[in-house]
């Protein structure tokens, strides 16, 4: 589904990703872990189509198509979704209105008829239950004045509404208490249908207790330095990142 090959990315003069390769197949859940500053957010931003970054080498294909050539909205329409680490507040744009626009734009692109008001509402009600999000949040301006947990839940809610093929969760666990974490994870798990793929980016192993990954990768200094199964996450939790850092330094 997603194939990243030897991806090098810089911003300004600073090289942030130095040859990332990763393949994600349908239905798989990949966790990307790594210490702060290793390039995790950069990777997700590049995949989602943020423009400040310069890809200097490598390629990314999404279902065989060149992802890097697509505008951000086309990537979403093709089925890529990024749950932001820091969802932006947009005063004056109603959450519902925005979502209806987005859902119907995406549907149009996929050759589906737009949802009318009734169908949209029904869809919304269903998905709201999934992430235990309150109706009152949806009539408000997009993320405006939402608590950290509400913002993250809103991200998962949007994901549920947009039906992506691949969802990237960028440190969705950061700043969440256990209850919020549980709700977010429940939403994600409900959307695991064997076809949809996930990339879960996280600093801590915590979230992975709720969302069990098939693969765990460690990103360090802009490179995936270690890959393994879910036990790798546990090892990291126990021994910390220093263990990996040491191992890398020794092999250099």
């Amino acid at each position: 589904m997603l194939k990243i090959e030897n991806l090098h990315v810089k911003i300004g003069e600073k090289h942030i990703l130095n040859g990332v390769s990763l393949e994600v197949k349908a239905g798989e859940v990949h966790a990307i872990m790594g210490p702060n500053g290793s390039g995790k957010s950069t990777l997700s931003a590049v995949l989602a189509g943020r423009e400040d970054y310069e890809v200097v080498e490598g390629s990314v294909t999404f279902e065989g198509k060149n992802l890097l050539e697509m505008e951000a909205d086309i990537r979403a329409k093709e089925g890529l979704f990024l749950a932001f680490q820091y969802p932006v507040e947009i005063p004056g744009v109603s959450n519902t209105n925005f979502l209806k626009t987005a859902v119907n734009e995406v549907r149009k692109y996929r050759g589906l008829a737009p949802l009318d008001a009734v169908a949209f509402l029904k869809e919304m009600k269903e998905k709201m239950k999934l992430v235990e999000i309150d109706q009152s949040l949806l009539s408000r301006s997009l993320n405006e004045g939402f608590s950290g947990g509400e913002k993250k839940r809103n991200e998962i809610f949007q994901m549920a509404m947009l039906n992506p093929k691949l969802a990237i969760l960028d440190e969705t666990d950061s700043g969440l208490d256990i209850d919020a974490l549980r709700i977010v994870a429940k939403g994600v798990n409900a959307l695991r249908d064997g076809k949809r793929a996930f990339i879960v980016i996280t600093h801590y192993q915590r979230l992975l207790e709720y969302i069990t990954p098939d693969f765990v990768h460690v990103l360090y200094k802009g490179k995936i330095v270690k890959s393994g199964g879910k036990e790798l996450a546990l090892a990291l939790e126990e021994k910390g990142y220093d263990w990996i850092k040491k191992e890398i330094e020794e092999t250099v």
Partner: protein
Amino acid sequence: MLKDIIENFQATRKVESGSLLEKLQQKALQLLKSIDFPTTEDEEWKYTNIKKLVNTNFFVKNSDASYANLSHFFPQTECYRLVYVNGIFREDLSSVLLDNNAVVHNLYEAYSSHQEIINQYLDSSTLHTETAFTAINAAWVKHGAFIYVRRGKALQKPVFLVHVQDTRSHSSLAQLRHLIIVEPGSQLSFVEQYYTLGQSESLMNLVCEAFISQSARMNHVLLQTEKSLSSFVNFTQVHQAQQSHYTNTTLTLGGQLVRNNLHVSLEGEHAEAFMYGLYMLKGNTHADNHTAVDHRVPNCHSNELYKGLLDERSTGVFNGKIFVRPNAQKTNAYQSNKNILLSQQASMNTKPQLEIWADDVKCSHGTTTGALEEEPLFYLQSRGICQEKARALLIYAFVAEILEKIQPLFARQAAEQMVKEWLGNQLEIA
């Protein structure tokens, strides 16, 4: 030259000889011999160059325009309607009111029955000598709204004034002079809308003066939706007595050169004035909003919010003056001007000007000018919304704060429609 045109077109401004209207016209013509139009040397006109405008040879129609089918410009809502084409009142298309409670009519037609009160207010007005623009307006004084709401009466319907600048076969100069008197405890909602038909040059030179008496309320909406060769110069002066309430919303969505002067004078305690403005400019439009609120007495409240969007090569000016006179203690005066530049070529000059002579006051002002933020744009795009639509959503969110203030509903809906059109109909806003 503008001045010569006035001299030459006697017929359109003909009024009874010996009447005050004629005297005002004569006085203004006399004045015009000695005063000149402002230049950019003049502080008040520093960023608005009118040289080309005042040297344009506008055409003035002597007779009523033949264009009769204007009904698509009228709102569906019930209202008193004043219709003008090329500066001339069209009674056949209007629905006026003239009874013991109130008058909604053209100034000239109302003059015969309300000479005394019209004389009283026009004669004492200092507006006519303010600038060369108000002077040429006075030299023409005849057409414009006369709205008179008697003590304790509320008009049952809003007043809708529409002016159509028909420039399909020739250029056009049109002038209107409104006089609005809202007596103690009465209420008025007044919506003015200005359109252009055609592609020739034109100028609307508007003077509006409103007197809002004690405990009276006036809601005032000005919708400027002119075409790219239409210019608009507007002097609106509002006098507020104690406990009166005035709301003005001015929308500018096009035109060649637009200059609005909105002056609110708070003359009685506990008066409240709200001034909202929205300008959405593109092409080569230049729009200049000069506002002034004069706190002459204690305990008054003024609140001003002007927002602007400037695209392509458009230019904007905002100058907001707040005067707080020495005895005007306990004044609350707030002002804010926020602009978004949508293109590199667009520019905005903004200048708050506070002159505060009293010490026990609450005044604040703020101004921002910047580009559309990247973060929200990316967020919307990452959800599958194309860039153009995402921009439109964010722009609409920015302007909604002003649109929400517009009353009555039909005016708000008209404004929303105009804004959507300006945005290229990218949005279906629920």
